[in-house]
């Protein structure tokens, strides 16, 4: 799959001017609310018309202002999962699921099958229910199933978990991961929540004020020091790919390998060799210029400072390269001066095992 987007649209309050590419897997359109994320996927779906630009999906041009070409929404074969599910209230769950199937243009052999979809999403028991009898999480699963069953070439998901409470959210994420594993339909996933993105997305398109600030693999964008204030959303941190070396039999402490060594975190129930993403918040990382002795901190890594943020706030973000991985530390400027830390310095980064959130599972 390849999606090429280069579109502009004046929305009155601000202008969307976005160019990016997306491939297989899940690409997240990430940014604060009001950054133009929803407008972009509306234009991808054909429900909104860009002023100028081009949208090409695989080798088919869906929109091209230069050639006055606009494929209507119903002919784009792009599935759309809305934040509020939008199940049809006059149809039961089964009829909702079948709505797109009955209307799809070609009966592709690789299209998701009804039985597979309801099995993967765990909605077999809901088929004969009316939509108002469903919980928020169930509604969203049915909405995902309905979109999948229209055999889309691309799936758009507009903050599908934003309307759910935290607990429900964590129930749905594994279902989205499973659908991705089973059906491999490329997806654009709109979000402003770091935790969702770490669980689901392969690539990230970072949106700021209607434009694309950066795009690339999630780790690369999240770890870029110049974007820390944007990606961090008030609580900056680095994203580190790890895999489970030891599943937490040692006093409830799991050992996770990464490029620069081994993290020890409080977690149980992790499967050995699972790939994970660890988010280490900058404010949980302290620095020392010599190897600390007699400290309770379990994670101490030696590394080299690659950058120090430069503005007039009393705190500074320090980016440290640990064997190829990036760890960020947020310390006061005063400490920075006292310890004489600057780009190139050798430092020891310390992270308390209890400070690290349960890692995001990558499949």
């Amino acid at each position, binding site marked *: 799959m390849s999606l090429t987007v280069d579109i502009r649209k004046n929305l009155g309050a601000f202008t969307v001017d976005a160019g990016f590419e997306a491939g297989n897997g899940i690409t997240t359109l990430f940014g604060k609310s009001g950054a133009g994320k929803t407008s972009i996927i509306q234009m991808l779906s*054909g429900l909104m018309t860009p002023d100028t630009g081009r949208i090409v999906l695989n080798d088919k041009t869906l929109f091209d202002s230069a050639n006055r070409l606009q494929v*209507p929404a*119903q002919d784009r074969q792009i599935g759309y999962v809305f934040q509020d599910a939008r199940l049809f209230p*006059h149809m039961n769950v089964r009829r909702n699921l079948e709505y797109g199937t009955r209307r799809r*243009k070609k009966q592709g052999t690789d299209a998701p099958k009804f039985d597979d979809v309801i099995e993967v999403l765990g909605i077999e028991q809901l088929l004969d229910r009316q939509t*108002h009898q469903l919980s928020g999480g169930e509604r969203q699963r049915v909405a995902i199933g309905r979109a999948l069953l*229209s055999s889309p070439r691309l799936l758009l998901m507009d903050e599908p978990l934003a309307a759910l409470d935290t607990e429900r959210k964590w129930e749905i994420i594994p279902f989205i991961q499973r659908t991705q594993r089973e059906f491999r339909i490329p997806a654009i996933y709109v979000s402003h929540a770091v935790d969702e993105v770490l669980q689901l997305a392969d690539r990230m398109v970072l949106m700021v004020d209607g434009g694309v600030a950066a795009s690339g693999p999630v780790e690369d964008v999240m770890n870029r020091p110049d974007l820390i204030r944007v990606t961090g959303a008030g609580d900056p941190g680095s994203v580190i790919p790890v895999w489970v070396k030891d599943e937490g039999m040692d006093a409830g402490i799991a050992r996770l390998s990464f490029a620069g060594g081994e993290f020890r975190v409080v977690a149980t129930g992790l499967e050995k060799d699972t790939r994970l993403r660890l988010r280490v918040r900058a404010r949980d990382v302290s620095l020392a210029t010599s190897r600390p002795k007699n400290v309770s901190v379990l994670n101490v890594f030696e590394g080299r400072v690659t950058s120090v943020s430069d503005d007039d706030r009393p705190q500074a973000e320090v980016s440290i390269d640990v064997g190829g991985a990036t760890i960020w530390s947020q310390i006061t400027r005063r400490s920075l001066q006292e310890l004489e830390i600057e780009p190139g310095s050798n430092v020891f980064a310390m992270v308390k095992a209890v400070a690290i959130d349960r890692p995001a599972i990558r499949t």
Partner: protein
Amino acid sequence: MFSVSPEELEALQLSLKVSFWAVGISLPFGILTAWCLARLEFPGKVLIDAIIHVPLVVPPVVVGYMLLLLLGRNGALGSWLHDTLGITVGFSWQGAAVAAAVMAFPLMVRAIRLSLESVDRRMEQTARTLGASPVDVFFSITLPLSGSGIVAGTILAFARALGEFGATITFVSSIPGETTTLPLALYSLAQIPGEEGGALRLMIISIIVAFAAMVAAEIIARRVRRRIAGS
């Protein structure tokens, strides 16, 4: 006193026939008109809207006379219909149905338009992303979701058609067995001394029919609402 005479029964049957045809034929146009008014912006929309509402605001006799001028044997449209298609609307039960339809049309359009405007447009967009063409969306989403309003509009129009008097008597006069509907029969019986019994019976029948129609409307509307509960 409740032995209904053949003439009275005939008036009832004729009324039902006229109303059914009036509503049945005008319903598709009513839905189309309501949809255009609810969803489209076009020049002269206000004027069209006003014209549709004319029967609601002018005296029914005026509408009847307009129909007579337009559709009567010598009328502009009427003579053409007669000469080319051999259809005569004047002084026939079809004419009575036309009069009833014209009078009931604004009520029908108003109710349907309101319910179309209350349909969640986002549902229609969702259907588009699932591969439904605009026409498909209209029949599979818009129409079912505005079902209760369409039922309400239909019944309202039916009740209005049943009660039509002024336009009917002006346009097609009162010909027993052809254009003498229930209200017309009731009116003429009320004019004749000694026929109070018949007038009373027709009055009661009128009330029962109208009442039954309203109850049926409520039941159907409720069923439709229950089907789309949670919306």
